[in-house]
């Protein structure tokens, strides 16, 4: 075997039995950034992930969008042209998909042992979960931003402020959904369950969020379900930021302000984080 190398007795290793470890605050903070950075590095090492991450949204935008637009005609959706209506929807869709996917990568880490390397380190569970939520969130937003390039093609334009507002909201939505994904991943033992998660969680969440069709004239029971969907509020905020003329989401007969959308999304994310820390904190 070519790569087996005999120990080289001439190397001196500094004996540092008194390595001064950093205090818990600094250590946990740096550890959180490191967990975040790992996700970013991995994204760029797997460029196919970016492609598969945007393939489905593109299909929705240009195939489903164009097809339905011709059926709906000039009526549009929620006061705007259907393809334009769909654009924020597919941004949210891309973020939703990759946020859940990043979180569920924890199951891979478990299968390949890397999770244990993290769990046995002298850092808090909350540090790891927060780092992971930030990492998954950032990765999702990077993927989502690839789609923003297409905005001019379908006649959507941004101002500097609306762009950054959208960016912030995307980040918020991605962070919350990654936290939600971590909760799912903590209860998942095998990667085979991934298909089930996609079918039972991702797709219903997506279809009932207002990403594909407007939520203002639905049958009663569907209205209730869409309002219970935490993704609905993030999608609504993103759409109204990009398309201010579109019909806003209504709740209990009143219009939901964008700030409330953001608060609900954030609140959901924090709740999921707390739950995720609890579920991961368990040692047998």
């Amino acid at each position, binding site marked *: 075997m070519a790569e*087996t190398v005999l120990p080289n007795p001439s190397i001196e290793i500094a004996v*540092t*039995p008194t390595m001064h470890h950093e205090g818990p605050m600094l250590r946990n903070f740096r550890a959180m950034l490191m967990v975040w950075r790992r996700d970013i*590095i991995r994204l760029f090492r797997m460029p196919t992930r970016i492609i598969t991450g945007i393939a489905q949204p593109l299909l929705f935008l240009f195939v489903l969008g164009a097809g339905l637009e011709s059926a709906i005609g000039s009526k549009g959706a929620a006061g705007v042209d259907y393809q334009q209506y769909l654009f924020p929807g597919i941004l949210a869709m891309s973020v939703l998909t990759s946020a859940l996917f990043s979180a569920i990568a924890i199951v891979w880490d478990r299968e390949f042992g890397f999770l*244990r390397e993290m769990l046995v380190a002298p850092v808090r569970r909350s540090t790891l979960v927060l780092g992971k939520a930030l990492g998954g969130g950032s990765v999702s937003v990077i993927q989502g931003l690839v789609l923003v390039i297409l905005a001019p093609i379908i006649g959507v334009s941004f101002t500097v402020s609306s762009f950054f507002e959208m960016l912030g909201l995307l980040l918020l939505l991605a962070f919350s959904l990654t936290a939600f994904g971590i909760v799912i991943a903590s209860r998942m033992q095998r990667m085979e369950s991934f298909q089930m998660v996609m079918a039972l969680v991702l797709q219903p969440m997506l279809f009932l969020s207002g990403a594909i069709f407007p939520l203002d004239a639905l049958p009663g029971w569907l209205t209730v379900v869409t309002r219970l969907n935490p993704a609905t509020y993030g999608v609504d905020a993103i759409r109204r930021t990009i398309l201010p003329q579109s019909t806003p989401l209504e709740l209990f007969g009143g219009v939901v302000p964008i700030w409330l959308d953001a608060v609900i999304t954030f609140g959901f994310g924090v709740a999921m984080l707390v739950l995720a820390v609890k579920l991961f904190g368990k040692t047998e």
Partner: protein
Amino acid sequence: MAEPAVEVQSLYKTFGDFHAVNDVSFSVAPGELFGFLGPNGAGKTTTISILCTLLKLSAGSARVAGYDVVTQSSQVRSSIGLVFQDITLDDYLTGAENLKFHAVLYGCPPSQVKERTAPLLEMVGLVDRADQQVRFYSGGMKRRLEIARGLLHAPSVLFLDEPTIGLDPQTRLHIWDYVDELRVRESTTMFLTTHYMDEAERCDRIAIIDQGRIVAIDTPDALKASVGTDVVTIETADDAAARVQVRESLGVEGDLTDDGLRFKVADGEAFVPRLFDRLETGVRSVNVRRPSLDDVFIEYTGRDIRDADVNAGDQMRASPMIRGFRKN
């Protein structure tokens, strides 16, 4: 006397009504290479997982590097290094990035990490491959990187859970060369589990663990001596006549075998000169064999370690520890 590096008292771990670890007590001195020898499913990994704070103990107490594994788990984690049975590297990170990740999680200051990373990489022969993603490494390279990583934060106790399992004999030997080197250079306490006899031989002391209990604990030599008998085999011109002579003059009963005349005696080397004194038959060859750890294992557990390995009921002992981290 210095505080023990590892101290375990009446440790129990129960899964349902199954005793994976059953009243285990031992202590490991600082700088010692201590081995847990036992078949798969004997409770080795369960014990190590408790010491590493990955599993909760059911009863008893355990201290590692002076810290209690239950109440001071964070301090324990800072003081130990781990090399697991299965690879726990990120395949899509480079070797250097895996080390960096580890250093940050263990709170090592960047300046000291730099100082330590280069020589550690050099020692495990991975300097040239440090910037390559781990998925392009061979199994042996991954293991070597893990050993370097386990030592990066200068732990006072390094746990090696079957560090050479699944590796070819040559790579196993090289890994051991590194481990021996490290003991000299870093004076790290090493706690090893293995079911290879030749690896157990290298330990300062070993504990033989079977079905959740320690059945014997001592230095390899003392354990072998405790079996009591060396095996002395002689070939003579007339084995049958020699057998009678020895019986009458020394009171030792020999067995006639295909290999020659065989005696089981406490101290083989002292027995040989006495034998030569009394024998009137010409001796063609003499062979003195000490009992091996295989003999020791059979003596204490009543079965061969390889037979014990495939005992299906014992497999249950191994799996609960893995549950929650990894599914096989």
